[in-house]
């Protein structure tokens, strides 16, 4: 079979497919991207040069090899990463045999799927814009592909695609608003694709970090019902680490303890809502001590699964799409003030044997001179402040006794170093202590009225247990770099290094611009990306269909479809209405109608010249005029360069002819 598809058609399909693939380049293995690119280039060259496409055995072999290679690379074919890679490989191999429209359609469908996958990876406005562009191109390619062979007139595929998508938009909106969302999943998402892009790890080993990368990406946003707490109180707890092996702090399994701690709330409660960016982890940040969630927001809070004994929160599953939840916190609550259960106390005092001897000795010294734990804390912090400790994002690596090395040799590090060293000192001195990791600070966005907390605000601090006071927060980093806490963010001057976002601190208008854009993005995330059953229910309530569950949704959907169909039908009918021609057509129609009434209707097969010739014979009195009339009509209609004068003459002739043809009708 000769290649049935033209180069243009092929190029359109390949271009759309390539753009659909573009967002995936960052996570596709290079061999996949390379294979697809090579297949595209080869196929285009083959089309131009008329090369034969590879034989069937080779294609099947390549398909099998490609599948196996993806399987080997990902150990699965399930899930987003492996699925996307497989789609890309199949697109490349399909290209090798693409000739018939059906092959094109397969490629285009793969392209749509790649667009979908790109949205599963990221739901930003920019990503959506890209996918819409790709969708438009793919639809145009589809419009190009289906055309029956030998179709005569060119149909502008891009205009067609624009039209279909634009006319479909209202209905798509109806479906978006009223198609019920499900809670839960049809099939499990493999753990491998939970991307750990967030700044918070589940463990902490400061000695092993040589360069702390601070991402300026948003971590979450928080809306407070009242005023937000001052920046020195914005400690967002995510995880509590209590197990220490001399190098690494880990969350203990016993932290999964669900015993409710004794909490004495003091001071006003803060009600707020957090919109969390996807983290790929189940942990949820909460401000200081979470004491509950407001009753009126209980519905949203239902998705929250677990509140642990250490007052950290987690979802039922890893957070892979934006998540919103409401909480009530207290910044002055006392947690377990009376009693620390003995098993927990043992855990919070444990240190690995034989590590960090100098630190233990220092702890003993400090302990001896201090009257109580409070004074001990003050002495440790005093030491951090007065000795030449410095804050840096690129600390030296630490060896076998990392705390000793940090406290007595390097004396340079970031929050994790200080938190780790502080906790070890406290434990060695007999004060139960633990490390808390989370976020500190947050910038107020006045356009959106929320606090934005960035990944670069990730922080580590400590909590120590004091009899009668319970768990008390101590932030040793603040002793070294108070700006870290009070300014909310690191500055370049402070760290002596380039911290992310320093440009925005230098130029206020840039910061304003960024805040505005963030407010737009946040609204997008909240309203569109975060559109959930709760928002859907609110929308139904607003429409007066509330309280009926899926019946309300079904009714709204049906009504939307019916209305859409009616509007579309009317629109198409109006658009495809028979056009009343211009004045030339109208004049021609008048003369023809006059002749028809005189018993000389135009036959269906008759061209204008033949018809008028017949008319001339039947009405010799007007023969000359009719002949001119016919000639002018043909010239005006079929000769592209007809002059305006011809038109005027034609219309004048029509005016003369219409009355003249009447007596002729009478004579008959």
């Amino acid at each position, binding site marked *: 079979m000769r290649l049935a598809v033209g180069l243009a058609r092929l190029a359109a399909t390949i271009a759309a497919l390539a753009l659909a693939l573009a967002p995936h380049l960052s996570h596709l293995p290079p061999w996949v991207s390379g294979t697809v690119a090579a297949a595209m280039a080869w196929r285009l060259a083959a089309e131009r040069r008329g090369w034969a496409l590879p034989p069937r055995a080779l294609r099947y072999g390549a398909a099998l090899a490609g599948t196996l290679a993806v399987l080997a690379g990902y150990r699965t074919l399930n899930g987003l990463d492996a699925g996307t890679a497989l789609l890309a490989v199949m697109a490349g191999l399909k290209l090798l045999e693409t000739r018939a429209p059906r092959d094109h359609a397969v490629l285009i469908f793969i392209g749509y799927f790649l667009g979908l996958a790109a949205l*599963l990876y990221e739901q930003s406005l920019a990503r*959506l814009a890209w996918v819409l562009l790709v969708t438009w191109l793919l*639809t145009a390619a589809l419009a190009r592909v289906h*055309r029956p062979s030998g*179709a005569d007139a060119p149909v502008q595929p891009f205009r067609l695609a624009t039209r279909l998508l634009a006319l*479909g938009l209202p209905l798509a909106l109806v479906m*978006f608003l009223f198609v019920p*969302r499900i809670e839960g999943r049809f099939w499990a998402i493999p753990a491998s694709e939970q991307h750990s892009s967030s700044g918070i790890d589940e463990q902490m080993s400061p000695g092993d970090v040589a360069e702390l990368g601070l991402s300026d990406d948003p971590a979450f946003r928080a809306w407070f019902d009242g005023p937000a707490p001052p920046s020195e109180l914005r400690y967002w707890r995510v995880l509590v680490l209590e197990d220490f092996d001399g190098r690494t702090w880990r969350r203990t399994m016993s932290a999964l303890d669900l015993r409710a701690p004794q909490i004495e709330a003091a001071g006003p409660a803060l009600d707020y809502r957090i919109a969390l960016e996807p983290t790929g982890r189940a942990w949820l940040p909460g401000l200081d001590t979470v004491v509950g969630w407001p009753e009126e927001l209980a519905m949203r809070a239902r998705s929250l699964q677990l509140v642990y004994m250490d007052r950290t929160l987690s979802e039922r599953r890893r957070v892979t799409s934006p998540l919103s939840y409401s909480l009530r916190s207290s910044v002055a609550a006392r947690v377990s003030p009376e009693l620390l259960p003995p098993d927990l106390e043992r855990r919070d005092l444990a240190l690995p044997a034989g590590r960090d001897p100098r630190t233990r000795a220092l702890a003993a010294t400090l302990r001896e001179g201090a009257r109580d734990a409070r004074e001990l804390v003050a002495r440790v912090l005093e030491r951090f402040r007065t000795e030449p400790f410095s804050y840096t994002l690129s600390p030296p690596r630490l060896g076998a006794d990392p705390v000793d090395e940090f406290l007595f040799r390097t004396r340079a590090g970031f929050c994790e170093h200080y938190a780790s060293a502080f906790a070890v000192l406290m434990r060695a001195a007999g004060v139960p202590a633990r490390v808390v990791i989370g976020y500190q600070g947050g910038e107020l966005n006045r356009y959106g009225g929320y606090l934005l907390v960035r990944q670069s605000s990730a922080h580590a601090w400590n909590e120590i247990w004091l009899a009668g006071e319970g768990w008390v927060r101590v932030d040793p980093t603040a002793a070294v770099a108070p700006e870290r806490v009070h300014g909310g963010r690191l500055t370049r001057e402070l760290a002596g290094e380039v911290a992310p976002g320093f440009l925005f601190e230098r130029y206020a208008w840039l910061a304003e611009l960024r805040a505005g854009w963030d407010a737009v993005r946040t609204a997008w995330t909240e309203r569109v990306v975060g559109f959930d059953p709760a928002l859907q229910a609110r929308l139904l309530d607003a429409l007066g269909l509330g309280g009926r569950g899926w019946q309300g949704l079904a009714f709204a959907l049906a009504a939307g479809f019916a209305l859409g169909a009616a509007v579309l039908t009317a629109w198409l009918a109006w658009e495809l209405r028979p*056009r009343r021609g211009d004045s030339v057509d109208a004049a021609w129609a008048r003369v023809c109608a006059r002749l028809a009434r005189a018993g000389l209707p135009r036959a*269906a097969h008759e061209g204008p010249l033949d018809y008028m010739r017949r008319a001339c014979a039947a009405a010799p009195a007007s023969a000359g005029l009719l002949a001119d009339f016919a000639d002018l009509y043909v010239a005006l209609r079929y000769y592209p360069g007809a002059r305006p004068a011809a038109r005027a003459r034609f219309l004048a002739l029509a005016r003369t002819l219409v009355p003249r043809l009447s007596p002729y009708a009478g004579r008959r």
Partner: protein
Amino acid sequence: MRLWRQRLGARIAAWSRRRHGADHGTVTITRRRVYILPTRLGLAYAAMLFAMLLGGLNYGNNLALALTFLLAAAGWVAMHECHRNLVGVTVAPAGTRPPFAGDQAEFAFNLAAGSARPDLVVASGEDRARALTVPARGTATASVRVPTARRGRVQLARLRIESSFPLGLFTAWTWIHPELDCLVYPRPAPRDRRAPPPQTEPGVARDGRARGEEDFAALRGFRPGDPPRRIAWKAYARGGELVVKQFVGAAHAPVTFDWASTPGGDVESRVARLARWIVDAEERGDRYALLLPGERVPPGAGIAQRNACLAKLATFRLPAAAAGGGRAA
């Protein structure tokens, strides 16, 4: 399976004929008679959308759902467009081109709509015409072919006009039952030396020379209907206009092709013989008349004369059964 499909097809055809009746003359395709079904591509598209929907719901990803809904809505609009593309098109018979028996009869139709209608396919039975576009103003002409076996008449019982514009996800179609006839000329008998065409009587030729020795006289411009063998191809090949050689002596007295003068045999072979003579005479540019028992065509020349004579022959002494013609669905 195939038989089953054929039977089903026949039943549907009979049903549509009953439902819509015969369509004589110009037909305007109304909403009532346009049918629409998804194509294979459309079904694949629907399957793709379903998979996308499951994926979007599973991941709880609103933008993925939005993309799915947008594509679904575009498909839905495409369905409306596809249906609408046929509604309002007028189909007018625009003549037939009679074939020789064994060739294909051609039925032409003029399609107009008053607004542009792309990618219409006019089909009859196995024959599918090229896709054509009805312009916003004016008409498009489509012709369908119907195979013939014997002289007489062939009928075009049913015409299918379909379109899968704009995306090929749906096919909308309508059936029209024009019940048009087309003449089928008898296939001329092979040239045979033993049955030479009758000549004009000797001596009637103006200068008495034998045929074929006419003097070349002049060139004149080509007119439609001029026999190709008279065209001065050499002059044309040199880059000139299409001109026709004229010969002195071509203006013979008319020959009469008489039924009685054909060599014996059955009706069909005699008709075929006459057809051969007529076709040859027309190619030579002769003037001739046709005389059949009970019918005659007065002398004349040119393509109109040929067609008039062949038309007489097409239906001459036709068994009643064949006169109705072979139907073509």
